[in-house]
């Protein structure tokens, strides 16, 4: 793949990157979240055809328009989020859309036998008659790999395949990868786990911010070198961090657990402080925020605000305790797309407007925040879905400011919005901290979280691996903790 450019409306996601994969090798793609790895793969398999650039596969230039074309040509992808049909059997999932037929009738016997043969070839222990939904994630993944093999794939792309596997399952996966290699199949492997990458990779290519950085044989690289390549830049002063006095502890989280996603997380948050939360995909940061905000069942631990223990069972309780959460999934649980800017702005604060609702006051408040946050909209009666992502985000920020929270949790507040709106939101967050509010800022962009925060909590797979003070911030350190499996031990006077 050479000079691949992919533009989404308003964003240049890939800026002319390249990738060269040799048959019979494992080629690992590395980079921070948003570096462009997944986008590049989506270009390759035809989910997002590239805006420009050339893809050459086995000597021929190819232009896949959809995944089916790629699949039939021998390129398959095993997604991080598997999407099986859970109520149907393994067998039917395996041959989905291409079941062997006798005339018009599906040949179930042949389908079943083919599955058994395939599983035997790969050394898989899966019952083809089992319902797909009853399999473990590991087994589902194996079935996906078997499916890739059944298409006679020459390239198999694996996006974070080990993120939900146990150690034994990972070993099994690696054995299968070795077998595929032996069959001269190329594997493109995306992962954040340094140890496994260096165990199985032949080649490593690093991307950063949609650009190609470097590519080399794995034996010529080591963990430190790769992290350096991934980070590669000095943190520039584009973040308007203003040091403001940090007050008393307002929120204390003690051994917070929420199912498997959050395990024993403890931290303190002070008035006027911006506490960053860094980590890679699946670190459990969003889940921690959801647990504090009552969106997720807390299975252990305690939360105190101003010294008093909170028992938050729902977002309603959280808001009553003056906690706000600007969620990561703007479309999923942020905006109500059909409703107007006005209705979206006042949504978390309807109690304020009495009975019957004071429409005049609602309009005034909305106008005020539209002006304050510089939201660009034709009118406050416009449906919010007609605005750009950045302006939608501003409306949501306005919604939370209107509730006058003491603690505002912002989860990926600038994801997918343009640079202008981004820096406006940054200034706003800093200003809020200056007014004595406490902010928790979750961000997958290291420069952002390092530029904005007073301290950073680093998480990895549900555990908290570090709390880093501003003076110690460095991308290398945070990335090291973000891939570490060692839980944080609070310094007891010595450090």
């Amino acid at each position: 793949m050479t000079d691949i450019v992919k533009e989404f409306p308003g964003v240049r996601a890939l800026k002319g990157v390249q990738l060269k994969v040799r048959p019979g090798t494992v080629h690992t793609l590395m980079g921070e979240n948003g570096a462009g790895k997944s986008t590049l793969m989506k270009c390759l398999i035809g989910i997002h055809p590239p805006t420009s650039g050339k893809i050459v596969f086995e000597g021929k230039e190819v232009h896949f328009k959809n995944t089916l074309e790629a699949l039939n040509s021998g390129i398959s992808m095993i997604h991080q989020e598997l999407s099986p049909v859970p109520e149907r059997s393994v067998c039917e999932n395996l041959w989905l859309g291409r079941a062997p037929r006798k005339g018009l009738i599906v040949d179930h016997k042949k389908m079943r036998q083919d599955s058994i043969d395939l599983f035997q070839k790969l050394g898989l222990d899966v019952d083809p008659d089992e319902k797909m939904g009853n399999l473990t994630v590991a087994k589902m993944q194996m079935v996906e790999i078997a499916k890739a093999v059944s298409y006679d794939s020459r390239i198999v792309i694996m996006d974070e395949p080990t993120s939900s596997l146990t150690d034994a399952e990972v070993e099994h996966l690696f054995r299968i990868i070795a077998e595929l290699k032996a069959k001269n199949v190329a594997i493109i492997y995306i992962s954040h786990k340094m140890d496994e990458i260096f165990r199985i990779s032949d080649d490593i290519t690093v991307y950063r911010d949609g650009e190609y950085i470097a590519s080399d044989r794995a034996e010529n690289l080591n963990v430190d070198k790769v992290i350096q390549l991934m980070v590669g830049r000095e943190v520039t002063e584009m973040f308007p961090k203003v040091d403001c006095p940090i007050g008393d502890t307002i929120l204390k989280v003690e051994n917070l657990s929420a199912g498997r996603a959050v395990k024993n997380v403890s931290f303190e948050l002070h008035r006027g402080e911006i506490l960053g939360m860094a980590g890679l995909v699946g670190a459990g940061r969003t889940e921690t925020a959801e647990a504090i905000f009552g969106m997720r069942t807390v299975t252990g631990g305690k939360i105190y605000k101003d010294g008093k223990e909170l028992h938050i069972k729902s977002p309603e309780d959280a808001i009553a305790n003056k906690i706000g959460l600007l969620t990561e999934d703007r479309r999923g649980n942020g905006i109500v797309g059909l409703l107007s800017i006005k209705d979206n702005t006042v949504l978390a604060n309807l109690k304020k407007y009495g009975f019957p609702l004071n429409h005049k006051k609602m309009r005034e408040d909305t106008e005020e925040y539209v002006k304050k946050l510089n939201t660009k909209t034709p009118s406050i009666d416009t449906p919010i879905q007609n605005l750009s992502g950045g302006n939608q985000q501003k409306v949501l920020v306005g919604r939370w400011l209107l509730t006058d929270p003491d603690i505002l949790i912002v989860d990926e507040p600038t994801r997918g919005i343009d640079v202008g709106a981004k820096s406006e939101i940054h200034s706003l967050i800093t200003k809020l901290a200056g007014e004595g509010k406490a902010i928790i800022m979750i961000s997958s962009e290291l420069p952002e979280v390092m530029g904005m925060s007073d301290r950073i909590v680093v998480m990895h797979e549900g555990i908290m691996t570090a709390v880093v003070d501003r003076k110690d911030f460095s991308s290398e350190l945070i990335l090291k903790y973000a891939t570490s499996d060692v839980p944080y031990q609070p310094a007891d006077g010595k450090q």
Partner: protein
Amino acid sequence: MQKSFDKKKFLSQNSIWLVLIVLVIIMSIAQPSFFSVNNLLTLLSGEAVKGIMAFGVMFAILSKGIDLTIGASAALVAVITASLVQPADYANAILPGLGTLPAPLVFLIGLALGAVIGGIYGAIIAYTKIPPFIATLGAQLICRASAKIYTNRPVSNLSDDFRFLGSYRIGGVFPIIIIVFFVMFAISAFLLTQTRFGKNVYAIGGNDQAARVAGINVEKNLILVYIWCSVCAAIAGMLLAGRSGSADPANTGLNYELDAIAAATVGGTSHTGGICRVSGVLAGILILGVINNGLVMLKVDDNMTNIVKGLIIVGSVVLDMRKNAKRA
């Protein structure tokens, strides 16, 4: 510029009223007696009961749900309340010897009964998250059967006081049921646009996850939606009994839920949730009423009338969806 934009928006939002006006004109030309005061009053009083049900069920549809129970719960409330207003000396009374209770008290009993029925299946929908279609289908069967268990014969010979709202005509001409209908219209409009409850239902229908994150108690509001639906059905049931003079466990309100849903749908209430205008639903009720009444007057076959209604229901949703898609 601004002004012409508003005009366009006004037309697009109220195009359904244009449809209604055109229909009325066509009917009036085809059958001049259609547009007589007498006939229009007949039309309105005929649609009032289903219309009140439509004002209830539109909340359920707005919340991305549905309520199939309302016809049957109307029947259940109708037979129970009717049995409380039969004369003591009436040989065929369901509760012999009880005598006639005061109508206002019986009305309150009916409303409370409606609220309890809706509260029960509303709670089941809100907390078990089973599809409202299924929950209310089950509730429909249970309510209808309960009405038949309560009495196996029509309850008749009801007190005049109880029948007042359903059948009284002011000056012998103007049916008071039309006033009840417009009062219910006003209450629905008020609930929907002037209260937190209304705003909450819009948000829940539009995006229940976002509503929850914004601190809205989704469960509580869903229960309120079905309580409101069921209270509307209770009112409709008591009006029906009052209007016809009897409550029949087997036939009162039979299939009315479908007419109510059709009216709310033709009126632009979106089954994907989050879109509803009370004025649109009013127009939807009237459009179906004009078709019912007009085609009868033109002596069009009953089956033909239903075909026309079917086409209008489907056609209106196709148009609405295209309109909404364009807006998105």
